[in-house]
């Protein structure tokens, strides 16, 4: 039997029972489509998070005060205070490293912001002009914080769009005065809409010069220092330099934590990849169920087609050829089912992309390969038993029955 004959034969069988074929295709299609759709969701989430981190700036190294002996993210390190502050002088000293391009010290706190009778609680960010370059913040109107000595406390501020709308409505904003706590600040700029980035909404913040924030919150201590390395290769050097510089300034004590952005991204990447794999595995269980269905239908087919198989054998078909006939049919069914499934999965992806344009839904290549391959493998695996049964039929007996 030639290959074309084999395919033709299987095709005839599939066409002979359109209802049955349709239902098997449906089962396989659901399985493959769910795997494709689910991995597309997972991969989309992963890319989204990576992009979000990327928009925070590249080649970033973050310096936090405090250090923990125990491994893992210690909330104590992340928000707690330390006896020895990380100060502005420490941050400025980091510039002496040759691998460092920009630094931006940060103080964050809650401040109640007032204009006339309107008031609003917003996060207040104390920092220097370089943060705009590091974190890719754009200004929609006016300008960002002025360059100059960060020790000088200028009474100016830059506000997010939401803050501007809430406090001023449609009135012009630039040059107006704003009260934060018991201090006054002149608005010199409004930031461009950037939206949420990792839970921190830049549309809702007020940015003031670092020294002003120090006075406002009555603290010397920086929450963290963002450092941008000159290039990707320089990141380890920056890390080593930062630790050494601070150690020398803190009387030999290593009381800071240095996180590279790459490490953070890598962690998130790993977690989300593992999640995607796990969820894809769950969805793939449905492929096994579809495999069971194929086996069931094939077994029935062997009983129904006894005479046909008997005739084939009587005409000289070997057991191997009979097996091949059944495998061809199973592969054909699984392949068409997988094709339908991928098409439907991609359709779902398109709809999801339409609904949430920010998230880059894209089924990863491994899922697009793995889903059909798994479908084919289960189909072949579950056809072994029926095909064997068919091949072992005794032609005389098979033909002798009615």
């Amino acid at each position, binding site marked *: 039997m030639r290959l074309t004959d084999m395919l033709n034969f299987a095709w005839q069988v599939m066409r002979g029972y359109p209802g049955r074929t349709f*239902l098997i295709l449906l089962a396989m299609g659901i399985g493959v489509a769910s795997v494709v759709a689910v991995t597309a969701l997972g991969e989309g989430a992963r890319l989204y998070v990576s992009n979000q981190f990327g928009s925070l700036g590249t080649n970033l190294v973050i310096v936090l005060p405090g250090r923990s002996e125990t491994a893992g993210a210690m909330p104590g390190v992340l928000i707690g205070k330390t*006896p020895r502050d990380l100060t502005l002088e420490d941050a400025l000293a980091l510039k002496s490293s040759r691998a460092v391009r920009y630094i931006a010290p940060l103080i*964050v706190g*809650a401040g109640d912001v007032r204009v006339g009778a309107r008031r609003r609680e917003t996060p207040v960010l104390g920092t220097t002009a370089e943060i705009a370059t590091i974190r890719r913040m754009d200004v929609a109107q006016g300008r960002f914080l002025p360059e100059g000595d960060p020790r000088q406390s200028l009474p100016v501020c830059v506000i997010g769009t939401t803050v501007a709308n809430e406090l001023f409505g449609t009135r012009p904003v630039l040059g107006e005065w704003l009260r934060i706590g018991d201090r006054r600040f002149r608005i010199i700029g409004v930031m461009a809409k950037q939206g949420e980035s990792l839970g921190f909404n830049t549309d809702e913040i007020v940015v003031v010069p670092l020294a002003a924030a120090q006075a406002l919150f009555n603290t010397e201590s920086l929450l963290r220092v963002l450092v941008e390395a000159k290039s990707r290769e320089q990141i380890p050097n920056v890390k080593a330099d930062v630790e050494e510089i601070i150690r020398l300034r803190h009387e030999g004590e290593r009381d800071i934590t240095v996180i590279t952005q790459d490490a953070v991204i890598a962690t998130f990447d790993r977690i989300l990849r593992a999640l995607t794999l796990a969820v894809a595995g769950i969805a793939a269980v449905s492929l096994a169920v579809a495999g069971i269905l194929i086996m*069931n239908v094939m077994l029935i087919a062997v009983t129904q087609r006894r005479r046909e198989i008997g005739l084939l054998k009587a005409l000289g078909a070997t057991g191997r050829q009979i097996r091949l006939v059944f495998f061809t049919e199973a592969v054909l069914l699984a392949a068409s089912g997988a094709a339908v499934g991928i098409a439907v999965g991609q359709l779902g992806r398109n709809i999801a992309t339409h609904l949430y344009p920010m998230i880059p839904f894209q089924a990863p290549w491994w899922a697009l390969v793995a889903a059909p391959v798994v479908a084919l493998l289960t189909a072949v695996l579950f056809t072994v038993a029926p095909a064997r049964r068919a091949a072992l039929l005794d032609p005389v007996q098979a033909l002798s029955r009615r």
Partner: protein
Amino acid sequence: MNITDFIRFTYDSLRAHRLRTVLTALGIAVGIAAVILLTSIGEGLHRFVIAEFTQFGTNLINVTPGRIQTHGASLGAVNTVRPLSIDDAIALKRAPHVQLADPLVQGNSDVKYFGKSRRVTLYGVGPDFAASLRMQVATGEFLPQEDPRSARAFAVLGSKVAREFFGAENPLGSRIRVGGERYRVIGVMQSKGQVLGFDLDDTVFIPVARALDMFNRESLQEIHVTYEPTAPVAEVEQGIKRILIARHGAEDFTVTPQQKMLEVFGTVLDAITFAVAAMGAISLVVGGVGILTILTIAVAERTSEIGLLRAVGATQQAILLLFLGEAVLLAAIGGAAGLLLGAGIAALLQLALPALPVHTPWSYAVMAEIVAVTVGLAAGVLPARRAARLDPLEALRSE
């Protein structure tokens, strides 16, 4: 056709094709097992998180400075122009129904003892901290009841810190240096282990006023308030707000009852469990398609039998019920098997990975069975209708 005949007929037709029945039921079983297993893990996780929180008590309210909430915590805990002071905490003790009000500030500091040095999480707390969070002291005592504004330099160690510094020695009465100041150790806490990423044993507790001085900071991070368990939460919340607004002139703080936090966690975890269960349910749908396929084939095979039944007087409705019954029975068998399979794997998982919380509530078992039967019914409708509508004459002739 009476009920017993009906059941026997269905049972016989399933038994006649044993392999077919087993395979069809297996499809449903795999689906149900996946759903049961996933929801068990979800429910286990839910209980785990709730238990992690409620070990500190449920009649707890957190008061934090500032009103903007990010990442579930008030930003005011970091820096704020509207500080919460120790006096605020003392004033809150007078709020209605309030039992304890304990100030807290947290940080990271170096602790030294005889040349050994360790970075630990430092908690500046009041004397009621252990009582309000239901933490037990292993040896010695917790910080003594005295004016929190001028407390003496006593420290209580977490169990891990005590072990690292003192080994088998008795740490009570020893002097340690915390952030450059000397403290006398008066107690060691019982081991509490990791709670949601916090290692509560790698800690040192000192009086809150001294911690504020050490960190050069004026605002507390939060105030823990416990209230009488029988008191209505809303009333307690109102009382706290009234007192603080009178003291600050405005509502510049956030009051978060523990129960509200638990509810939020509960909804999030339920949503996740539901999403994962839905993913498992895809297999169930495929299993349903399996029943549909097999029954469609069965109707075609048994055309003459149906014709005979109709000829001897079975109504269309009876035929419909027969095939529906077969579908439901198939699904029910599959559902029961899947239930055993899922619960079995869940139990095995618990044996193999005791750290993974797994819990299979009985209500799920009932629900899974109902879902399986529903899937069977839905899948049976089309083939059953086709069987019922067969013309008896045509059907008999098909032989």
